[in-house]
């Protein structure tokens, strides 16, 4: 049984098809990269998996259980966490309180939630920012806060939505280290990313989509050299 399985998933907004007949599997312990040009429907795929949108058609299974149509908070309690591309810090709360909110997903005890939150903060290297209001963080730290918060819900599957975008090269390296560490702790990861250096280096497999439909799937090298993928990014002349 795959950890996550999408079969024939479609999401339409009126006449616009954002995701079309998309099927793929994610095995436990994998890092799968999801790539595609701007507007390809990557974030919509996340929104459909995490329950923010109900799919128009198709089935989504997590640990064998149907999750399409479930709400995000229910999906979260099953062990599926996500980060947001457009970061959503709880602006007036401190970094610690932000992470404690998500730690409460697994415990109702304040001291226990604090312990879990402090672990997540240490894990993502945010100790020195602990007491700052989340709204005052620089972008790089906001992206990290997204990861710290998702981790504190103790997920089995983590969806990372462009956590590398807008970071400078040294921040990118630091974030790659964190993602590898998260993976090392036994979490399966589905990652959306534009930075090809990142995708090629951390993904075990890559899935490329365009107009919400699958273009190619395979090892990073296979997908990067696939004519259809090159065409989608650069146009026919280069393919």
């Amino acid at each position, binding site marked *: 049984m795959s950890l996550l399985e999408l079969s024939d998933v479609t999401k339409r907004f009126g006449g616009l098809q954002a995701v079309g007949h998309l099927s793929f599997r994610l095995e436990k312990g994998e890092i799968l990269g999801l790539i595609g040009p701007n507007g390809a429907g990557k974030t919509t795929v996340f929104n459909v998996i995490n329950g*923010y949108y109900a799919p128009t058609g198709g089935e989504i299974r997590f640990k064998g259980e149907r999750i399409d149509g479930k709400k*995000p*908070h229910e999906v979260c309690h099953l062990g599926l966490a996500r980060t*947001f591309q457009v970061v959503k810090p709880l602006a*007036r709360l401190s970094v610690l309180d932000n992470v404690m*909110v998500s730690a409460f997903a697994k415990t109702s005890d*304040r001291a226990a939630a604090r312990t879990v939150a402090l672990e997540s903060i240490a894990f993502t290297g945010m100790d*020195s920012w602990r*007491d700052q209001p989340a709204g005052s963080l620089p972008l790089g730290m906001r992206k990290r806060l997204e990861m710290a918060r998702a981790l504190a819900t103790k997920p089995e599957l983590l969806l990372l939505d462009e956590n590398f975008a807008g970071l400078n090269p040294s921040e990118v390296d630091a974030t790659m280290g964190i993602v590898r560490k998260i993976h090392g702790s036994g979490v399966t990861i589905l990652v959306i990313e534009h930075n090809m250096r990142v995708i090629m280096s951390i993904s075990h497999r890559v899935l490329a989509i365009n107009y919400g439909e699958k273009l190619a799937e395979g090892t990073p090298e296979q997908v990067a050299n696939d004519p259809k993928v090159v065409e989608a990014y650069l146009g026919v002349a280069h393919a």
Partner: protein
Amino acid sequence: MTKTTLLYALPAAAILLIPVLTQNPYFLHMLILVLMWVVLGQSWNLLGGYTGQVSFGHAAFFGIGAYTTGILVKSGLSPAAAWSGLLLGGIAAMVVASVIGWICFRLRGPYFALSVLALAEVLRLVALNWKELTNGAEGILYIPAFTSKAAYYYIVLAIAAACFLAIRTVMRSRLGYYFLAIREDQDCAESLGIDTTRYKLYSLLVSAFFTGVAGSFYMNYMGFIDPGIVFGIEHISIMMILVVMLGGAGTMLGPAVGAVIYILMSEVFRVFVKRGHLVFFGILIIVIIIYFPNGIVGTLNEWRARRKPPGSPAPEGA
């Protein structure tokens, strides 16, 4: 005794001793009103300040509490001077709140704020026209149980203390963290495992309960209510918002500070201006929203935080 216990014990002792030190009925009356408004402010603040769900119609819950007690006493169902009505008034308000919350909280945006405004108006019209039950525009009148103001002072003090402790306990628990998360970002809260519809409803239920209890107390203390007074937008709903905005939404002490200033100001207006004092409150709300959106306590907290060196811990519960 440590410094912090002293910090709490001294004002607490002073508050408890006031009726022993003075029997001046006017002064005690003012304090009773202040404490009642502390309860109203705290209740609105839990929902509006901490959970971010603005209500334009909390008079609905205040009036339900008041009328529950009034009708109980008048019908002779509760002969024990209606003090059991305090609890029943709160529970009746919760029942009404659960219906409106269950319907509205699945939506986001202004639906709840406006629905509850309409609810208060509907209830006012019902109270005005269902004469058999409510005595219509003549209102409900009975002789208050106690002649001494001190008795009412201690009763409302107990309600205010219970309300303060309940909300402080809530805000230090998982529930409180969830309320704040919902206020800051509902999509994010959902993705972090929070059933936002359910927790918004919990916040409303606690808020409506204490508002209803305050309404019951008002009936028992004043001995008279009519639909315009207890369901009135300008007397209750808007003034609750004013008290919280003035003192500082989303702070523990804000509603208390707001209540003191509100009662002082309405007395000054009543004595010196006589007419049109609502205009001044309207202008005041506009000034607060433009220049001090965090209220008095919120603005002070901000100053304090700015003066502190970076890296030092944030003030607890601020």
